């Protein structure tokens, strides 16, 4: 009894676990239960039960409610889908003037809006693409095809690759200095020589449209949320869900609304990239010292002047970090949106992976990673760059970089012109190196993969079999063995113990949504894969982080490595694992582990670093040794931050598990991928995405609540 009084929390947790296991053992597995491989609503089976709600028929396999809840929300995806189609095809028909046929045409409002938006986006992308690569769509948009036929000279020629490379180097030099300039130049030369110029510029043009638009919308909404509590409250839940929503899932409704192509990809990228921009804008504006705002007011600023002359310049750094985030998301989406027809490196990467041509995939992946790293470093340099004073410099000094660029443009054009004589009859290598005419190392890599397979096949196979048979399968079976009621009791109980009744209710609502959807089994599989990934990632991340922390240089080095790894678009992680382990669950899990170890490591180092120096000195003066200091001082204080790392690890792991569906898994991701090619998939894909987001949010809520309490307890801000 005394023991219970001493550790009431421990006792409560034990009690919760006892209840959980009691429920697990008390509820038998129904004899008819099996993991459903097909989608219940498409399987016609006399054993199915069904109900009709809002005119939608939901078919499902009925079990004891303690074992699996009936999918009472099964009508939701169908309803979303039908509503979307109704909106697109029937709602509010309005007459529009048709330019081509010179007559009025009746069209639903939403469809027309979507068409106009699509046309606008297409124009923007084409414009930038043709500046980089040449073409005539932009000219045609202002004139007509007939006009172009008569005036063939009007076609945009496109920039020679030499100019783009030099431009990138000059811009990098201005933002950061020699190091980055050299990196930028080499990256561009590499891309060009290896024949990836065209897809790279397609991807770049996609990002140059998506990123600025996301920035503008994100900044605008961020400002609105900063100024109005009501807007912030309305935005907050959407932002939360969007942060944990797998990017795949957003693709599906976009497919219905905007069709296939670069424009749809841009719009969907904006949907994903705007939330982090909003968050960072709000964060930056909030961090402004109140006295600066008061100083602005006392200088007689009106609201407009206060926002654009005081607040935004003061929050400049946070806002530019937001730009950095936007660019990173854009790269990630540049690959993923290849699923809905975005051209460029992502498309090539996907194609190569589909054909199992690892060498080609590697080349495309390397290119996209290099450009991502370059733009990441450039935008970070921009954020950290402080304004310089120019007033006392001469025109030449002030515009040195612009003049330099102008010179390179001329040189580049002259070179390209010379090239037309040099390479008569073949390709002008000084203008653009075509896709198949560059150096390719694909064969080398493919042979390497073959060699690895031939040489290590036995070992890899053995490891694979062991992992799948002895670890993964049992773990999966355990997860599926949990009765729904037991799971809900466990999660809600944890919520209550950590955050009280409020947390318990939030978590309960999130869990119930998944439990009442038709995909509880799939969600369990997703959860099992994520759990496995998170556990291994945390063990590796916490260990590596702690070890690296022991030395100042290794800590900085490790953080740098984390930075670079984080810049890789998530899809790129699939390349090496497919190279080694082929198409198995092992591949997915290893990609998950690699990807999710990044935040685990980073937050461990950051957490340990944030322990105040004073405490360090105090501990040293009390005569602790290194190990004691770590266990008695540093870990307890860094633990809340490390838990935030765990939170990120979970989100990262979920993302990768869902992306892993590309390799082939049997979880929610598989259905999302399926929904992409399904005409009626929009509602399903979206609801599935929400399910994944909710899994993430359950843990997010629990961990955040705990961390906040713990930080308050420790007095850390």
């Amino acid at each position, binding site marked *: 009894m005394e023991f219970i009084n001493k550790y009431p929390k421990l006792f409560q947790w034990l009690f919760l676990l006892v209840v959980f296991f009691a429920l697990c053992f008390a509820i038998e597995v129904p004899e008819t239960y099996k993991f459903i491989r097909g989608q219940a609503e498409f399987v016609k089976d006399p054993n199915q039960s069904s109900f009709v709600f809002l005119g939608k028929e939901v078919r499902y396999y009925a079990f004891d409610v303690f074992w699996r809840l009936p999918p009472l929300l099964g009508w939701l995806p169908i309803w979303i889908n039908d509503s979307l189609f109704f909106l697109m095809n029937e709602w509010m028909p309005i007459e529009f003037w048709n330019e081509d046929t010179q007559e009025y045409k009746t069209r639903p409002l939403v469809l027309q809006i979507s068409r106009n938006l699509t046309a606008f986006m297409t124009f923007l992308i084409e414009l930038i693409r043709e500046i980089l690569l040449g073409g005539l769509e932009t000219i045609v948009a202002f004139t007509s095809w007939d006009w172009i036929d008569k005036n063939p000279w009007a076609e945009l020629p496109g920039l020679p690759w030499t100019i783009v490379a030099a431009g990138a180097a000059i811009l990098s030099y201005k933002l950061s200095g020699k190091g980055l300039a050299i990196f930028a130049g080499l990256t561009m030369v590499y891309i060009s020589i290896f024949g990836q110029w065209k897809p790279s510029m397609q991807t770049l043009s996609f990002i140059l449209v998506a990123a600025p638009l996301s920035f503008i919308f994100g900044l605008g909404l961020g400002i609105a949320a900063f100024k109005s509590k009501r807007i912030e409250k309305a935005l907050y839940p959407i932002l939360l869900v969007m942060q944990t929503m797998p990017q795949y899932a957003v693709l599906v409704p976009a497919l219905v609304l905007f069709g296939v192509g670069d424009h749809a990809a841009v719009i969907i990228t904006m949907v994903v990239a705007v939330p982090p921009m909003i968050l960072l804008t709000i964060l930056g504006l909030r961090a402004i010292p109140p006295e600066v705002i*008061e*100083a602005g*007011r006392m200088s007689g600023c009106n609201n407009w002047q206060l926002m654009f002359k005081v607040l935004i*310049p*003061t929050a400049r750094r946070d806002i530019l970090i937001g730009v950095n985030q936007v660019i990173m998301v854009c790269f990630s989406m540049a690959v993923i949106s290849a699923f809905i027809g975005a051209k460029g490196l992502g498309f090539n990467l996907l194609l190569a992976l589909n054909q199992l041509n690892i060498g080609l995939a590697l080349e495309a992946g390397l290119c996209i990673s290099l450009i991502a790293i370059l733009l990441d470093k450039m935008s970070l340099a921009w954020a950290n760059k*402080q*304004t310089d004073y120019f007033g006392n410099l001469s025109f030449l000094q002030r515009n040195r970089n612009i003049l330099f660029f102008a010179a390179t443009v001329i040189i580049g054009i002259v070179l390209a012109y010379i090239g037309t004589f040099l390479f008569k009859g073949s390709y002008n290598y000084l203008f653009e190196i075509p896709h198949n005419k560059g150096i390719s190392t694909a064969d080398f890599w493919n042979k390497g993969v073959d060699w690895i397979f031939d040489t290590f096949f036995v070992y890899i196979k053995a490891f694979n079999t062991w992992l799948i048979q002895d670890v993964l399968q049992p773990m999966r079976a355990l997860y599926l063995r949990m009765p729904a009621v037991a799971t809900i009791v466990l999660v809600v109980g944890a919520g209550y113990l950590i955050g009280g009744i409020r947390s318990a209710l939030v978590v309960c609502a999130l869990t119930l949504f998944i439990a009442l959807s038709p995909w509880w089994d799939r969600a369990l599989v997703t959860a099992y894969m994520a759990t496995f990934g998170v556990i291994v990632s945390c063990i590796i991340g916490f260990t590596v982080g702690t070890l690296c922390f022991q030395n100042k240089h290794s800590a900085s080095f490790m953080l740098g490595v984390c930075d670079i790894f984080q810049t890789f678009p998530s899809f790129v992680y699939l390349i090496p694992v497919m190279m080694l382990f082929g198409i198995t669950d092992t591949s997915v899990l290893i990609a998950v582990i690699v990807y999710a170890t990044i935040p685990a490591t980073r937050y461990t180092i950051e957490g340990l670093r944030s322990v105040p120096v004073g405490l360090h000195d105090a501990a040293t003066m009390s005569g602790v040794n290194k190990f004691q200091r770590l266990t008695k001082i540093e870990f307890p204080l860094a633990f809340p931050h490390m838990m935030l790392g765990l939170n990120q690890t979970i989100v990262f792991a979920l993302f990768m598990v869902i992306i892993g569906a590309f390799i082939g898994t049997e979880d929610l991701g598989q259905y999302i991928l399926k929904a992409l090619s399904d005409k009626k998939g929009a509602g399903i894909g979206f609801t599935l995405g929400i399910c994944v987001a909710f899994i993430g949010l359950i843990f997010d809520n629990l961990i955040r609540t705990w961390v906040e309490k713990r930080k308050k307890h420790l007095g850390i801000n």
Partner: protein
Amino acid sequence: MSNPVIKCESVYKIFGVNAKKMLRESNGNVDAKKFQENGCIVGVNNASFEVSKGEMLVVMGLSGSGKSTLLRCISRLTDATDGKIFIEGQDLLSLNNKELIELRRNKMGMVFQSFALLPHKTVVENIAFPLQIKGIKTEDSISKAMDMVKLVGLDGRENYFPRELSGGQQQRVGIARSLAVEPDIWFLDEPFSALDPLIRKEMQDEFLRLQDKLQKTIMFITHDFDEALKLADRIAIMKDGIIEQLDTPANIVLNPATEYVRKFTEEVPREKVLLIQDVMDPSTSDNLGDLKVLKDEIIENVAEKILTQEKTVAVVDNNKKIVGSINPTKIINTVFGGRKNNN
């Protein structure tokens, strides 16, 4: 002194959701404790005072005493919950947003504890900022700002960024910025509190020099009693939102109104604060010595002279007219003893 520049009539500032309603029910008798139980925090409690033209009122109080809140009510950075505030006879609380901006652009300047400079602008751009906000052309505003740079002694550093300046220099920029529009009313919110003691003293002297030249109407907030004594024409001492005493430095030292105020005055070296006229005997007799001292001389400066006299010393005003007398015993009493008896 016909029209006060700043005039407050029972100003209240109470934070909280039900502040207005609770204030109405309390009928002006605000009990901070009772309000706190209901989730309201009293910032300013029934403040009434006037500041006349060219006067410097120092508001002194410890942190949480409501002094900054009071200042923000008068600059209308926050809206007072109740009461009336007049700026040059104009009802401040009735101004709409546009009129308020107009008032701030032309009549008010403010200096902040943390300097609150714009990090992306140079010294001269920071100072020119309020002018440019008003819509003055860039060249004119810059040349005006350059005058200000010279006034606060920062010439040569006009193209530095705030991050390249020391704290004292940054506050000079803050002062110059607040003076750029040539305001009549100057608010200073603990301007020297973030500075090192030596720099603080230097800035105080600099500030007195400026005020001597400019003769602004000033509200100066500080938590440093010595600073208040050094600078003020009158001091308002605040505690828990209430003005405990508002008087000249000498009167506060000699006649503290409450126990709270007395605690501050205990350690004050009186000979450095009080003037001859504060302690002299207003009656005169014929039996005075040859030495004459000015009535607004600080005691410390003439004490030695007076103490070497055997006779009572005559006190004269600026026109050399005898207005009172003071004997050495009085000086000794003032400096060394009788502090408690004086109450």
